[in-house]
């Protein structure tokens, strides 16, 4: 069920400010792709264009094409609601719905899609929580508030919530930046496991993390503050971290700038 992504001529704006300019890349199904780059280079912006979450922000807009198995997300008549159902997202800070229990958090997306049958919901809750490596920790307290879990658990709950609707693609926007090292490790393990079912795109500040979890790495940068971000190079992760083609990439990964 995983899907390939082809991006061409992508430019994203916040009002008059051009955040990223003319991006082209392709992502293979069932792979993990990491977006790295200095702050403000537009890697999160690009990520958010992949499920049309960019336009949720005021005055934000997108030009160019994002093809999901050949279908343009920005084509005429495309409903962003359908796009987001197909492309799930996990955010920087864990954001379970505070008024809902663990159970209700996991099935929130299913309920929106009209699934009401208790047995089906139960089944999917266990499946998703197992998928997110959280089942054993919470199976006895599914009725408790999701906000009562630890940060790492909350983030895995959010992953469970995202995969419960069985998306094609899973986007992760710095999913570990608010977590401690042990929780980070748990999430990274989970990513390698989810790779077998989903196309995963992850934005990270942490180059070790990119090296550990991803198959492909894309390096973004910006020339000066105020300039739009651009994609410098995208290649197999081993190559990016051992022998990058571009000088800018090498400078960045060796810590000489950024």
């Amino acid at each position, binding site marked *: 069920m995983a899907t390939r992504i082809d991006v061409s001529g992508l430019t994203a704006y916040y009002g008059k400010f051009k955040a990223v300019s003319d991006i082209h890349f392709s992502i293979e199904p069932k792979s993990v792709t990491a977006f790295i780059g200095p702050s403000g280079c537009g890697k999160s912006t690009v990520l958010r264009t992949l*499920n049309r*979450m960019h336009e*949720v922000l*005021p*005055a934000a807009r997108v030009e160019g094409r994002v093809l999901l198995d050949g279908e343009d997300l920005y084509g005429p008549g495309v409903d962003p*609601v*359908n796009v*987001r*159902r197909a492309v*799930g*997202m996990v*955010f*920087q*800070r*864990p*954001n*379970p*719905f*505070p*008024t*809902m229990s663990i159970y209700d958090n996991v099935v*929130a*997306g299913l309920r*929106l*899609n009209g699934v009401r049958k208790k047995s089906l919901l139960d089944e999917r809750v266990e499946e998703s929580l197992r998928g997110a490596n959280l089942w054993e920790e919470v199976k006895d307290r599914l009725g408790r*508030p999701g*906000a*009562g879990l630890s940060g790492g658990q*909350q983030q895995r709950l*959010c992953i469970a*919530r*995202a995969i419960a*609707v069985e998306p094609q693609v899973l986007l992760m926007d710095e999913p570990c930046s608010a977590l401690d090292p042990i929780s980070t490790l748990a999430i990274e393990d989970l990513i390698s496991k989810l790779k077998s079912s989903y196309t995963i795109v992850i934005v990270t500040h942490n180059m070790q993390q990119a090296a550990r979890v991803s198959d492909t790495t894309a390096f973004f940068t910006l020339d000066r503050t105020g300039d739009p971000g651009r994609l410098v190079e995208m290649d197999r992760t081993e190559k990016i971290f051992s022998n990058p083609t571009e000088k800018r990439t090498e400078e960045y990964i060796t810590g000489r700038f950024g």
Partner: protein
Amino acid sequence: MSSEPDGPRKGSSRNDTTVAAAKSASSSDGARVKPADALFKNLTRSAGLGLLALIAAIAAFLVLEATDALSANTGNFLTTTEWFPNGSPPVFGVAALLFGTLLTAVIAMVIAVPVAVGIALFITVYAPRRLATPLAFVVDLLAAVPSVIFGLWGLIVLVPRMEGVQKFLTDYFGWIPLFATDNGVVGRSIFVASVVLAIMILPIVAALSREVFLQVPTAHREAALALGATRWEMIRTAVLPYGRPGVISASMLGLGRAMGETIAVALVLPASFDISWQVLSPAGNTIAANVANGFAEANDVGRGALIASGLVLFVVTMIVNMIARAIIARRREFSGAAA
């Protein structure tokens, strides 16, 4: 645009604790407090205690000045509907007035709350950001219009224009007891007064609801959208559950405000003293409006009677307000414990 999972409320409570910590740290070396410091502290403290004394005085003097009239009363103050405090012997009771007060306020709330929530959603979710601030300002302007002007407008402009709506309601929905009238006669009714009150409490309820909706972290709204929620579904899953206690308490505060409103109601309603559910008929009165209407011709007993009725209003509004505050306080505890 805080992406914190817990709202700014928690942030402020955290701030409180640090302030408290700083306070206890500085008062632990209290032995070296200078006289000027102590003096200043006592000055502020006596102002605070003065405020308590003020409330006590309000209750005490209302009771004190009501007792003479109440003992002269030949009717039961709580169950009598008539209001003849200036007669001999005086007969008066607060029953019809209290009924009118509650009925107008509740109808006003029923009309105002859905509209106010709609306005709050419009400003926080639907309107483009560039429009949101001026629109919020427009609603705040509504709050700044003095009540006597709403009364004047209600009496001169709205009453004649509501004639058709009221006639329509009683002609087609007269079979509902609430909308029944004697011979289809409508006019300066409880319903029109409630509409004026609804317009007056609208900005308050809308402003408070807007505040709580704004506190819904962007992260929750985005979480819902990223799951494939439509805008309404995002509101239902992320905004409304988070904001519900705030909206309820805002409605209660609006209810309290509507019950205490005096001049607008006094101008719109004809002062009558019977308990009737016919909200479209030209009849009705409230405690506050009766004070304004009856004060000019009141003698000593009459003034005492009005003060006694005011005491009832004081108690009722205080109960409503306390319920509203309790809801806010409980919500605060809940979000504090959950985080």
